[in-house]
């Protein structure tokens, strides 16, 4: 099979880089508070990503004088209402992702790592995928075909094996899996599901769509600024929340971590330059996010979308984390069970691929439009979910709209709720793509 999109490798490399995180941070838990790790990782990475975004925009403006990126647009966009996320302003959307999706998610991830073991924590990543599958079933009416049912079964088998092996390992090591660890694991999965569901629900304003059509490089600084604001705001919101824990009458793991964090503040400089922290900032945050944004921006619409490939390859991270934990940090996991878990997860990846291929709806919509609407209508409809490209035509039809969605519910919504009510559209003709020929 000829791989038509080399950016798939970006997603694979990013997932592999992330899979070293548990091994790297486990070495830090003895002396450093998890809050310190999080503050240093996300504050530093947030600032660096912001500077990279500005640098990319300035370089583009220097090299492409005709397709300049208006930097102030990134600021104006923060007030744009996100139609795909409860109509809240974009800055509130970034804050929510930053605090609940990133900071809380990583806090629970680190707490689960600290109180259980690396393989056991990976159950959280698998649970996240299962939660998202059920969310898609409930909200998008995505059908449960045989591939999806088998996919959940494979993940469940892998989870059962990891649970039994982890409990046996805990018994042998004399380091029991704490009950709180399981609660952290569930919270890690819930916040993770929130992150994966909400981060895809971004929407562009009309001005932004105009800029994207002037230069495709507009999207990279935008994505970096989105992430950097989410990181920095998440950390800023976390600090007062930590103070609340300090004044609570009962003691929790958060209280201990917060007290420890304030002690760490005195030696923040030396902690920042530890190789583990530098790995987290550079190789587990900046580089992977640059890789995935580059892939997202340059994604050629092949048979599957970027987000579909992202969800298929998302299983690489937990799988390789368990493998690396066994090989590099001697986590307890008998090799025969490890091979069975890997086989289950590889089958799950294949099943997910089969499901996604069967569940993509490609269509072309041919439109006849009112006179005098050609200059405004394309940008107006380009922001609708599912619309990938629009061609302005000379011929019987005026516009041809390329659509790619995952369910007929989304397709129905686009045609009947978004396009047909528009006065500027006189006639809609749908042509479903039954097969794309390969060249």
């Amino acid at each position, binding site marked *: 099979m000829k791989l038509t999109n080399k950016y798939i490798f970006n997603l694979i490399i990013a997932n592999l880089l992330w899979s070293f995180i548990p091994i790297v941070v486990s070495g830090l838990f003895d002396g450093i508070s998890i809050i310190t790790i999080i503050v240093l990782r996300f504050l530093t990475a947030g600032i660096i990503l912001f500077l990279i975004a500005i640098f990319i925009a300035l370089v583009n403006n220097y090299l492409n004088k005709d397709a300049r990126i208006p930097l102030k647009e990134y600021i104006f966009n923060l007030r744009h209402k996100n139609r795909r996320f409860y109509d809240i302003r974009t800055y509130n959307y970034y804050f929510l992702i930053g605090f609940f999706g990133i900071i809380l998610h990583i806090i629970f991830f680190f707490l689960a790592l600290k109180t259980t073991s690396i393989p056991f924590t990976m159950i959280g990543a698998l649970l996240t995928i299962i939660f998202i599958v059920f969310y898609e079933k409930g909200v998008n009416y995505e059908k449960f075909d045989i591939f999806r049912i088998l996919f959940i079964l494979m993940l469940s088998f892998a989870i059962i094996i990891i649970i039994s092996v982890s409990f046996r390992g805990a018994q042998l090591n004399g380091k029991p899996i704490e009950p709180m660890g399981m609660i952290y694991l569930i919270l890690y999965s819930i916040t993770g599901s929130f992150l994966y569901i909400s981060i895809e629900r971004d929407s*562009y304003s009309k001005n932004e*769509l105009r800029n*994207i*059509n002037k230069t495709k490089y507009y999207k990279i600084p935008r994505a970096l600024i989105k992430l950097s604001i989410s990181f920095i705001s998440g950390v800023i919101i976390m600090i007062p929340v930590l103070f609340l824990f300090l004044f609570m009458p009962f003691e929790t793991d958060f209280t201990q971590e917060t007290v420890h964090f304030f002690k760490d503040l005195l030696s923040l400089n030396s902690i920042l330059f530890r190789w583990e922290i530098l790995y987290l900032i550079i190789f587990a945050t900046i580089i992977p996010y640059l890789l995935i944004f580059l892939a997202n921006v340059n994604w050629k619409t092949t048979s599957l979308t970027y987000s579909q490939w992202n969800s298929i390859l998302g299983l690489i991270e937990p799988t390789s984390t368990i493998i690396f934990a066994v090989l590099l940090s001697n986590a307890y996991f008998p090799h025969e069970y490890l091979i069975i878990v890997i086989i289950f997860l590889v089958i799950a990846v294949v099943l997910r691929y089969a499901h996604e291929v069967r569940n993509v709806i*490609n269509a*072309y919509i*041919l439109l006849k439009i009112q006179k005098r609407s050609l200059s405004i209508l*394309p*940008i107006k409809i*380009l*922001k609708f979910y599912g*619309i*990938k*490209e*629009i*061609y*302005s*035509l*000379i*011929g*019987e*039809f005026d516009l*041809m709209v390329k659509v790619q969605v995952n369910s007929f519910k989304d397709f129905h919504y686009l045609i009947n709720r978004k396009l047909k009510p528009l006065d500027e559209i006189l006639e809609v*003709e*749908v*042509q*479903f*793509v*039954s*097969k*794309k*020929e390969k*060249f």
Partner: protein
Amino acid sequence: MRAIILCKLGISVINKVINELKEIPHITKVMSLTGDYDLLAEIEVESPEELYEIFANKIDLIEGIISSNTHLIMKAWEK
């Protein structure tokens, strides 16, 4: 310049027509459709003359295409 050719085909000729269209180097995309049209092809040419040449000497000669409806692309938007 790019153009979209929407074709209506006769019965049992779709594979033959697709193969013949794929042999034309200027055709960059071919898709089978369900709807009023059976096939969509995208063609990239340098000039209207070249488009005419390909139509007159290649596409028009393919047996099985009952009718075609060609649209020139003036501008494309993407996100």
